[in-house]
């Protein structure tokens, strides 16, 4: 004979393995004194162009490097290598997001203590990366003016998971009738208090302010760790 099924309480966080590893990575980054910034966005938002310009501008004064995630191809790493900063591609295959374990593996052989800022470019996707902590200190969500101002309302979870909203392709703002006010209202609705930075990586508009922001964050993190 069979007994009635019994209900057993089992409390397990499904993503615990990733969360634990992300915490370990964060601690490793802190000990090495490297400030880690990740970027999430939809495909085609201009993340790679932004990152290429960022690396080029920062490497005059800082030691910077980047990990770049993509489903396939190493084109992005090749583009970023033009900045002459160390770049590694993480090809995820069929996985639509980066996980902490992929970041850990990609870092093998790098001396983190030599770095000031490490960028992690996630796979272009506004859904899946929201669930995965990568151990970063700061997460940027990148929204280009060509995507429309309502993206935050469509993908509130990823916007909520990020710390700063980067508005890219500002040189096209007029042509696309992009409304900064509407975008701001939508971003503030899903993530009250979130800072927004508008840039055009192509023309350089807003880039000095953005670089100054990153440097201030780096200085703050170093002061906090000291």
């Amino acid at each position, binding site marked *: *004979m*069979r*007994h*009635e*099924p*019994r*209900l*057993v*309480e*089992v*409390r*397990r*966080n*499904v*993503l615990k*393995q990733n969360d634990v590893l992300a915490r370990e990575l964060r601690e490793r980054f802190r000990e090495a004194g490297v400030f880690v910034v990740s970027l999430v966005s939809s495909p085609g938002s201009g993340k790679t162009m932004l990152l290429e310009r960022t690396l080029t501008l920062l490497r005059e004064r800082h030691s910077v490097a980047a990990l770049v995630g993509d489903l396939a191809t190493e084109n992005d790493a090749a583009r970023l290598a033009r900045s002459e900063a160390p770049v590694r591609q993480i090809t995820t295959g069929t*996985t*639509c*997001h980066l996980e902490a374990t992929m970041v850990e593996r990609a870092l093998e052989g790098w001396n983190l203590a030599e770095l000031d800022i490490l960028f992690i470019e996630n796979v272009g996707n506004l*859904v*899946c990366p*929201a*669930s995965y902590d990568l151990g970063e200190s700061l997460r940027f969500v990148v929204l280009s003016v060509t995507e429309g101002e309502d993206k935050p*309302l469509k993908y*509130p*979870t*990823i916007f*909520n*998971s990020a710390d700063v909203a980067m508005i890219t392709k500002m040189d096209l703002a007029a042509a696309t009738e992009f409304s900064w006010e509407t975008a701001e209202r939508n971003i*503030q*609705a*899903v*993530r*009250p*208090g*979130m800072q927004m930075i508008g840039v055009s990586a192509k023309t350089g508009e807003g880039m000095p302010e953005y670089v100054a922001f990153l440097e201030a964050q780096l200085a703050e993190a170093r002061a906090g760790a000291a």
Partner: protein
Amino acid sequence: MHELSIAISLVEIAEEEAERLGGKVIAVHLKLGPMAGVVKDALLFSYEIACQETALEGSRLVIEDTPLIVFCPQCRTNRVLGSPQLLRCFECGTPTPEVVGGRELQMVAMEVEDAA
């Protein structure tokens, strides 16, 4: 679509627990928040696939939706919101980034049938 990899993790965890508990797993109970970044239907669909050829094959996934809860700094109390599209207190209108509930992706229980 990362629900399949989440379903695989879930099945792995459930298999571990099933080995510890003994018996056959009939159902796995999960709490899922609206800000977990996981689509319920996609997870249910993926669960069935992830269970194939495991000790969990044929088991059910029971998902309990948890509410989105924010803390209102003005009213100094928690508020349950209907949607993540507008994080503000429904009483006083103060915007609040402080999400205190709604990110859950947690296994909470298992139904196990003991063999005779």
